[in-house]
């Protein structure tokens, strides 16, 4: 029995030390810079490029309608002296209606562009939120602050800044292992 007690106590001590370092949760106050994460995350660039492409197509549609309408105005200006009073009224009404339609379309397109922007930004924010949560759990942090430059973290030492670590992990995760 005495022979066994020494190795068992050594094992228990080793396990105790291991579990102390392995399972202890860090009570450090740490933070990540959300703006830096948004800028440095690879997916932001991809999502932004997609969005810009979509916005460009949508704006191009509006531009071509506007060009058509401006050409019609020019033609009307040239020909107005030849038109009768009734024809003039009719033409003005037609051009007015067309302008209204283009304005409505432009507003709808602007709304669509804003919605697309909101969706793509939210996608990136979801990814960052998920990863920071996972990182915090994995590394045993009790709390990770998100600094956005709006004064919510006024001062922190460099050691408390996890941004680079998190950004690296986030990008590795996005690239796939």
């Amino acid at each position: 029995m005495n022979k066994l007690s020494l190795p068992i106590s050594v094992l228990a001590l080793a396990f105790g030390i291991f579990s102390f370092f392995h399972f202890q949760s860090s009570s450090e106050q740490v933070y990540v810079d959300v703006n830096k994460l948004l800028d440095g995350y690879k997916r932001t660039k991809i999502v932004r490029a997609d969005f810009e492409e979509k916005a460009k197509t949508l704006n191009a549609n509006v531009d071509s309608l506007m060009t058509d309408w401006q050409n019609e105005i020019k033609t009307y200006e040239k020909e107005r002296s030849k038109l009768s009073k009734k024809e003039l009224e009719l033409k003005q009404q037609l051009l007015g209606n067309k302008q209204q339609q283009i304005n409505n379309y432009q507003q709808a397109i602007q709304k669509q562009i804003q919605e697309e922007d909101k969706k793509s930004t939210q996608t990136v924010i979801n990814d960052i939120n998920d990863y920071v949560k996972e990182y915090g759990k994995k590394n045993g942090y009790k709390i990770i602050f998100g600094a956005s430059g709006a004064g919510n973290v006024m001062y922190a030492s460099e050691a408390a800044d996890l941004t680079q670590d998190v950004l690296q992990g986030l990008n590795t995760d996005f690239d796939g292992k």
Partner: protein
Amino acid sequence: MKSGILLFLGVFLCGCNSETFTTEKELLDYIMIEENGFTQNKTVNGYDFKLTYKPTDLLVKQEMGNLITDAKVKTLREKYNKHLYFILSMSKNNQELLNERAGDRNEFGAMVNQLAFGMNEKVHLYTQNKDTIALVDFVYPRMYGMSRSTSILFIYPKEENKLKEETLSFTIEDLGLYTGEVKFKIDTNIIKNEPQLSFKN
């Protein structure tokens, strides 16, 4: 000394085995506890998303009913073990997604269409290496506002080589709710060691 080693081995082997439950309710309760990894919850922009991995035996039990035979259990397990079954529930204020669209006929129609026919283009399952697992089918049962959430069953093939990685990612693209893409990471261990029912009369 020998008995100590045997005891240790016994405990170790029991720990590696999957859990076994005697009733369907016990199993359902177990998979609903988030810490067990079968169910995950997320709230984005006021919308609640819940993803649940449905173990094979729950489907076996559902088809078998109360008349249990060993042969039938074996056949059904073989049948359902070939696929992965996920239930995605989405809600806002404890109501179905369609409820808040009820005021606008066009939006309502578009959402019905999306949920019934378009979810294969919006939901994706892929590995850590970004290898996509192709969707086999999905089922959206209309509940006509009687349910607290919109639930859809997604079925994927069980490909052993894709389960070798630590996690699978289940993503839901934005469905026009401004939630962005919502992602769930699924630990493949829950699929490899899924809980079972004992199927005893």
